[in-house]
């Protein structure tokens, strides 16, 4: 398969990468694991004049604990997230979300940063990261900014990354939540994108829900937080009817499309069931 030619850059530091990107403007594309970029170049959807590889930026591969937060470098691979002892201990739900992704071979190449910046609504990591209230750090020649991951996505598979910016880190703040989970339905167990998926986090005290986040994948043109369904739960006593009602509201708020992976109607149905089950799992099993 033909890959269009390009000029290749492999900066040695984030600062150097930012300087190169500032100079090249829209002629440059960032290359992380390459599983999306090379795929697009091969099928003729992308032909950048310049590729700026992040391969030397090893400091962005780290997953670490800091006071008040867990920090994940944008270049951490899906398998790193799956295998991280730290994440398994604190947010097993996130590790398991990485494990629902593509094959082992792709999970060794693909990165969390690429999964986010790619911007598609079927991406597996953004929903659970948003449920965990993660924010992202973006760096460019002009400086650094931080934003809630939730605000990064908009429109139809659009993101708010600006030209010249590199996503450097994902920050998960320490949680008031007591549980979280990601449930995905794919057509096969391995190597299949989500037909629909639901990530939730819950804050349970006694038999009452004090806080909830519900975020859906493959259920709208962008990753979708369903605040109406969340509100229906807050301050209420937990029972199956309540969770079923939230599933119904989540499905109502979704706007999935018909595709080869599933009809809109089928997907809406999946959203209802997955939301209800995810809530139950997060309530009963914690961050699992």
């Amino acid at each position, binding site marked *: *398969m033909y*890959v*269009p*030619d*390009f*000029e*290749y*850059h*492999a900066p*040695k530091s984030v600062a150097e990468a930012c300087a190169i990107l500032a100079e090249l403007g829209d002629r440059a594309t960032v*290359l992380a694991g*390459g*599983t999306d970029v*090379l*795929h697009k170049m*091969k*099928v003729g959807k992308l032909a950048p004049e310049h*590729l700026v*590889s992040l*391969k030397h930026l090893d400091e962005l591969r780290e997953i670490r604990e800091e006071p008040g937060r867990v920090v994940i470098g944008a270049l951490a691979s899906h*398998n790193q997230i799956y295998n991280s002892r730290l994440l398994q201990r604190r947010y097993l739900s996130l590790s398991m979300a990485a494990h629902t992704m*593509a*094959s*082992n*071979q*792709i999970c*060794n*190449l693909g990165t969390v940063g690429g999964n986010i910046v790619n911007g598609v609504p079927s991406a597996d990591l953004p929903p659970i990261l948003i449920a965990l209230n993660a924010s992202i750090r973006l760096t460019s020649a002009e400086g650094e900014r931080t934003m809630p991951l939730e605000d990064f996505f908009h429109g139809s598979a659009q993101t708010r990354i600006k030209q010249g910016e590199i996503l450097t880190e994902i920050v998960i703040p320490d949680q008031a939540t007591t549980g979280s989970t990601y449930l995905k339905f794919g057509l096969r*167990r*391995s*190597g299949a994108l989500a037909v629909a998926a639901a990530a939730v986090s819950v804050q349970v005290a006694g038999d009452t829900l004090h806080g909830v986040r519900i975020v859906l994948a493959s259920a709208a043109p962008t990753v979708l937080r369903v605040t109406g369904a969340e509100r229906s739960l807050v301050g209420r006593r937990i029972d199956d009817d309540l969770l079923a009602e939230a599933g119904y509201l989540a499905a109502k708020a979704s706007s999935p499309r018909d595709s080869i992976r599933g009809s809109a109607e089928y997907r809406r149905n999946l959203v209802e069931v997955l939301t209800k089950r995810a809530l139950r799992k997060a309530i009963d099993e914690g961050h699992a």
Partner: protein
Amino acid sequence: MAQAITDKDGVKRYLITLNVNGDAHTVLVKGNAILTNVLREQLDLTGTKKGCELGDCGSCTVLLDGKPVDSCLVLAIEADGREITTIEGVAENGRLDAIQESMINHAAVQCGYCTPGMVLSAKALLTRNPNPSEQEVREAISGNLCRCTGYVHIVEAVLATAQGRLTPDDH
């Protein structure tokens, strides 16, 4: 950064080092050269196969720093200086690896197209986890599609290798 050389027609190439199966090879590649193609065409290591070329089938699997990756989605220049194991590097001193013996003995090979990738995925699994469950074997090879065998004999062959029985019990 790899040394760049521009020829008289203005085509830029990079001098990179690929450490393949323990040998350092210096090769001149264009930026858009894909690792699978460089292994096959420049290093003559044709054991690495090309199927979908889009990351779906796993026939191009190699180990990059010990981990299985689809070499069809890796630029050769991205692998500069890194350790690569291809199927040619699995046998040692002319002796097949236990996984390869076991695959033969279990009739886990039919057309053979998936086999190099399958062996490398299995090898990486057994290196990391010498005693895998059937579920773990199935997961480890889930990125390697086989259109012939139905997987049963392959899974059996890998499990048997882990248990040190290289010949099948009963067929």
